């Protein structure tokens, strides 16, 4: 059995028939080939699979593809515009906010949501805002710097 869904992914319309149990992250990764969202756990704790659904940061391993019917989804692949990196992407590069890069797409999209809510967060607000995303490489020090860099660029 499948259900039909229509949604927008990175600004483009997508139509698909999916198994009702299919996770959004598997739909994005395996059906659409958008492998930027990564899977790091199955308990909604690591945040590597974070994407934006109608502007909200959502862990796509905890949402069914069927639930995204009618939604607008942005993945890391859709963040750069016209070949220009998003300020958060620049910030992570500039400030060495990533090492292995596995958590990075989710971290950047969570930070994107944070900055949409609070365009000039202080260090504590950044740490509070990103606590749903685990990075095992950086010790987070430079992730805070990367988000501050982006916030300044965007203001």
């Amino acid at each position, binding site marked *: 059995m499948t259900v039909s869904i229509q949604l927008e992914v990175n600004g483009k319309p997508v139509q698909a028939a999916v198994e009702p149990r299919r996770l959004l992250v598997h739909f994005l990764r395996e059906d659409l080939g958008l492998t*930027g969202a990564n899977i790091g756990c199955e308990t909604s704790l690591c945040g590597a699979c974070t994407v934006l659904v109608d502007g909200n940061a959502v862990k796509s391993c905890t949402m069914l593809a069927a639930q995204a019917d009618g939604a607008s989804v942005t993945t890391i692949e859709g963040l750069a515009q016209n070949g220009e990196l998003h300020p958060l992407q620049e910030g992570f*590069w500039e400030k060495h906010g990533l090492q292995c*890069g*596995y958590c990075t797409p989710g971290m950047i999209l969570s930070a994107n949501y944070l900055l949409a809510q609070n365009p000039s967060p202080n260090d504590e607000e950044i740490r509070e805002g990103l606590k749903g995303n685990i990075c*095992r*490489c950086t010790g987070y020090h430079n992730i805070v710097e990367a988000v501050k860099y982006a916030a300044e660029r965007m203001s």
Partner: protein
Amino acid sequence: MAGVLGTSIKRREDPALITGRGKYTDDLKVEGMAHAAIVRSPYAHARIRGIDASAAEALPGVLAVLTARDVAAAGIPGVVPVGWLLPDLKQPAHPMIAADTVRHVGDAVAVVVAEDRYVARDAADRVAVDYEPLDAVADVVAALEDGAPAVHEEAPGNVAFDWEIGDREAVDAAFAQAAHTVELDLRNNRLIPHAIEPRAVLASYDSSTGEMTIHMTSQNPHVHRLLMTLASLGMPEHKVRIVAPEVGGGFGSKIHHYADEAIVGLCSMKLDRPVKWTATRTETNLTDAHGRDHSSHCELALDADGRIAALRVDTKAAMGAYLSTFAPAVPTYLYGTLMSGQYDIPAIHCHVTGVFTHTAPVDAYRGAGRPEATYVVERLMHLAGEATGLGPVEVRRRNFVPPDAFPYQTQVALAYDSGNYGPAMDRALEMIGYDDLRSEQASRRGNGAGRRQIGIGFSSYIEACGLAPSAVVGSLGAQAGQWESADVRVHPTASVTVYTGSSSHGQGHETTFSQIVADKLGIDPDAVEVIHGDTDLVQFGMGTYGSRSAAVGGSAIVRSVEKIIEKGKKIAAHLLEASAEDLEYEDGSFRVAGSPDRALALGDVALQAYLAHNYPDDLEPGLSATSFYDPANFTYPFGTHVCVVEVDTETGSIELLRYAAVDDVGNVINPMIVDGQLHGGLAQGIGQALWENAVYDESGQLVSGSLMDYAVPKIHNLIPFELDRTTTPCPHNPLGVKGVGEAGAIASPAAVVNAVVDALAPFGIDHIDMPLTPEKVWRAVNS
């Protein structure tokens, strides 16, 4: 290019990773790919009475269910070997798939292959395994008690090995005369590495060629190929290609050769089609080799002046259910040999018992033996500061190996090549504002031991990096030597490709190694490509772990560049009608000494090397060189870390206030990357001290098997780190570098625990085992 070494060049790895274009193993998709799911034991110890796979096989989309019978029928070796040996090591077989007995929760008993990932998991749940549960033992101390359930018949008393280093009699004599002695019983908590990318493998066998390509999460593809072909699949080594694409962190966990990767290879061979398997977090936590898990009794003897007279350590080290790749080396060669720390200790004895338990195997995890050794030495030094009344700073200073004593031969095999420990301590004290902190502490204590106490903890660590000089580890009994290879090729247009045996998984080798070549050849780093992680492209290499890539892999690259310059001089001399001895190479040009206008750019020489029609008679064409660099010694990074905490004595909660680290990692190639490595190591070490704990219950169930129960540090748990460096170059490698990947994880557990214990000194507390949860702290305060 001048100034390229020691510069924070942005990483060339990042554009792919920040845009989602980097391809990790699970991102790969090939035509005809099937999916595997592994059926695992829910028991820590059980006999398998039978397996009924019929319900799984009946599910549409299921291609095969394989068990130990299929491994036997395939006529392959079918085992998972141990790579490092010790004298008298018990080596019970570790079958790829358990045949009659399972020995830890997560042991593989069957594998299902299906057309679809979801169907594979559905089918795995339908494989009915009839188990007869047996008594199990998960605790390293309990496993040695009389009557403990045996993990392997071949290892009576669950002893895998009994190892010692140092001079027991000299230590006993020194203790008999000591003015002060301190002692400690401690547990070094078991950790789960938690690389954020779970292990994964995509094996593609093609019966028409007999070749198999395996993409997998690997820190060392050549080592994996060797162990996979030799011991597991029995394929000819040259018919197997292993590729490590983007690898999402490792921290040791992706060094080891595991059953699962071999099982997926067998599935691909049986089905003659590509098969992918990606671990869930739960699976990876049950099967990744864990770290640490020691129980130790440690004693330090000092004379009346507070000088160390002797150190005695007895450690029980868990091996888990099977010996993993490096496992026997970790609590021995990488632990006992580090017991001198930064100190001049005249007598040391360290005895280690390796212990089988019904748990996941224990093997190298960030620091691998050295954090455990540092924890022993630095906890004892804290107690020694108290016992002698000298305090933590003076007792360390008084015992540092003095700067004029290098090279310094320790009593535990290692010879420290260089060091200067005092300045790192001085700088750390200055950064942290030590005197002011002590005043603040005194004033809080003066107020009737108020609720919020602050504590200051030190850790002056040593590590041995650049694994591993063949001669040194060979003399200790290891059946392995660890050099590194580098093949450097200058193209006709003077751009360069480096093929290195070091395999990056987040460290930024491509950036760093390009800086090395750019510096030595005097060219732009962007003219240098770095290839790694593919056994078909790179000749044999040892991989990335043990903070070895810059010191060993980087040195191999320098050796190759030197050979290229030597050959280039001969070509240039021919073209310039000069003598090769008169040529110098500088800033990308070969010049005749004393005649600055007689020069040729690298590109002119490279082009001629490939055209070769105006060329020295005795020289082969081409401009490339291969080196195998076997280091003369380990490298010995060191430093002093200071942690400041506030402890709420009513709730037991701990707040990190400051963390200052002064590290000496030798010359620095890319400061940004070096600082990043330190940050990450600190987070893992602080995590061990405060939160992380792999807990098995008495029946051998892993009760902290998911991120719900295993507390990996999150961003709001941690604070900004304050870093600085001293620089004492390594004297025996051409870059003067030492290694930095593990320093943070090695130093920080002791610094944090010493800080908490310092805060709680008014309560008479001198030790709490990690992790220092609020409950443990509260109980200590209230006992």
